[in-house]
């Protein structure tokens, strides 16, 4: 490939990157606007919308609810997804392929369909506008990510390690705790992280399952944009993005550290 063609491709990549991140970046200056409406470019600099975001009890409550729902979703999805991944990878039963397809279905089925289905059922169960309802709904959406991550770890894991552990006198439970779990832990943590993020920025199901008293951050943003165009929404969006980015970067860094640590250096 000629140097010119390579440069051309590089430029093309830049265009794609801008296309992908520009909508996110554009909200940053907008959130620091001194004006009263959502506008780009902003007329001047101000922190008022962040003050409003953290000061307004409605926004604050939504933020708390979002964190709570995302954490609980990560825990529940991991707790359910780990044994499910084991069953799908290690199990030998009829209909395994079918179960596999069902577990992965939430990734493919249109979200709005899932949301309406949940709305109808949760209404009759009295779960609308409850943390429990949101956690259950988001767990269903997050499960495929957990199962995929853990299943991948299980498939690449050296099974001879487990045989070695058993031959050394460790019970199956001890083998799981001391050998299998450490081996698949990166997959489990990745799954939990994906589950957290899935819930954290989910809006479609949240719109159906929330009410003015139990609101998540994305759902509240949606409502705000529909009623009053106020730069607080931009500030909220940036907080949303920031947490996701921080979690993701922390994950990447910890993975890199772990792989360096296992390669060199004195260790006990």
């Amino acid at each position, binding site marked *: 490939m000629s140097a010119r063609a390579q440069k051309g491709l590089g430029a093309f990549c830049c265009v794609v990157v801008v296309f992908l991140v520009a909508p996110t970046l554009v909200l940053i200056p907008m959130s620091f606007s001194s004006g009263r409406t959502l506008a780009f470019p902003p007329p001047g600099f101000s922190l008022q919308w962040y003050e409003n975001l953290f000061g307004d009890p409605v926004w604050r409550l939504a933020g708390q609810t979002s964190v709570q729902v995302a954490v609980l979703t990560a825990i529940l999805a991991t707790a359910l997804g780990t044994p499910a991944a084991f069953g799908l990878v290690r199990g030998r039963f009829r209909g395994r392929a079918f179960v596999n397809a069902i577990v992965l279905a939430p990734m493919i089925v249109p979200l709005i369909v899932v949301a309406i289905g949940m709305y109808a059922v949760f209404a009759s169960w009295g779960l609308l506008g409850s943390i429990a309802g949101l956690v259950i709904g988001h767990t269903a959406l997050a499960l495929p990510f957990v199962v995929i991550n853990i299943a991948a770890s299980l498939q690449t894991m*050296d099974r001879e390690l487990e045989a*070695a552990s*058993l*031959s050394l*006198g*460790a019970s199956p439970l001890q083998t799981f705790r001391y050998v299998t779990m450490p*081996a698949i832990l990166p997959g489990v943590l990745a799954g939990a992280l994906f589950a957290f993020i899935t819930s954290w920025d989910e809006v479609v199901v949240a719109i159906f399952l929330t009410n003015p008293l139990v609101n998540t951050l994305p759902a509240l943003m949606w409502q705000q944009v529909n009623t009053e165009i106020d730069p607080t929404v931009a500030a909220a969006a940036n907080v949303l993005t920031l947490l996701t980015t921080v979690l993701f970067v922390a994950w990447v860094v910890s993975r890199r550290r772990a792989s360096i640590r296992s390669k060199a250096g004195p*260790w*006990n």
Partner: protein
Amino acid sequence: MRVAARARSSLQVSAPGSLVLRDVCKRYGSLVAAAHLDLTVKGGEFVTLLGPSGSGKTTTLQIIAGFVDATSGEVLIDGRPVTAPPHKRDIGMVFQTYALFPHMTAARNVEYPLMVRGIDKRERRRRVVEALEMVGLGDRGTQRPKQLSGGQQQRIALARALVFRPRIVLLDEPLGALDKKLREHLQLEIKRIQQETGITMIYVTHDQEEALVMSDRIAVFNRGSIEQVGTPEEVYESPRSLFVANFVGESNLFHGRIAEHHARPSLLTGDLSLTLPAGAGRGRASLLVRPERLHVLAAGEVPEGDVNVVQAVVEDVVYLGNERRYSLVSADGQKLIARRHVGEQEDGRAPGEPVVVWWPFEDGVLVPAEPEPSE
């Protein structure tokens, strides 16, 4: 408890760690992985399961370890049938891939079997140090498997398999991933440790040289069956089947029919009549002569005594340092191999040279044409 069981048993077992396979079979659908295996291993013995890949030796090891259930038959350890799951069998295992736990240091790996048994910390520490010393890696306890060489990793794996003083240690091609020099070194090392600890070892390999060097006895596997069990010398010098003759060491084989010739039992093969060692039967058979038993003289010289003589031509000579390996073709067109020590009188034949190949009658071994049916 165990003593009482041994007293009840009809087996002559002295040291602990004896193993008996009684008519063990393993079938996967229509595939027979192990057929009617019978094997008795005395406590403290080093027995090698030798055979090509797919001959059933690893399956046998897995059955002993408890990872694979035999379709039929019995495994007895110290005279008692074993049916417990793998973690309750008290059998140490060493794998070709080492199977060290990557997230633990070498010392933690060795400590693992003691830890899961709930042995107290001080005793654990003492025995870990002892085991690491035994394999010559007393200073490597704090390192992780990835920081150790292949040979070091396998020593750690060996220490780990020995530290809890199992009744038997199974080794599945443990040196298969190492280079030749290191392999030879570790063969002697494993043998030394086995003799020092007096532990029963069952060793799986497809390397016949390794089997000859290390074993008290060798069980030669072929297509799921044991063809022969014997000391390295018995297996090499008196193979009971063509498979064993071919698989263990290099061999010159003459195939033919047994007949009386000049009042001696002879093998008629092509134009040749080769006199057999005493005790030959009748029918079809093969005569085995090991390469180091063949003598090579310049054409025209006449060997003396009770010897078989074959006219041949040197095809190729390979210098191996301490010996020369001659590839020969007999007048019948049969390929022969001879190994002669460098510097001895018969040494120094050149390619293309016509020669006289001879061996004493007693140096030939009669091998049945068909493998003997296993009892």
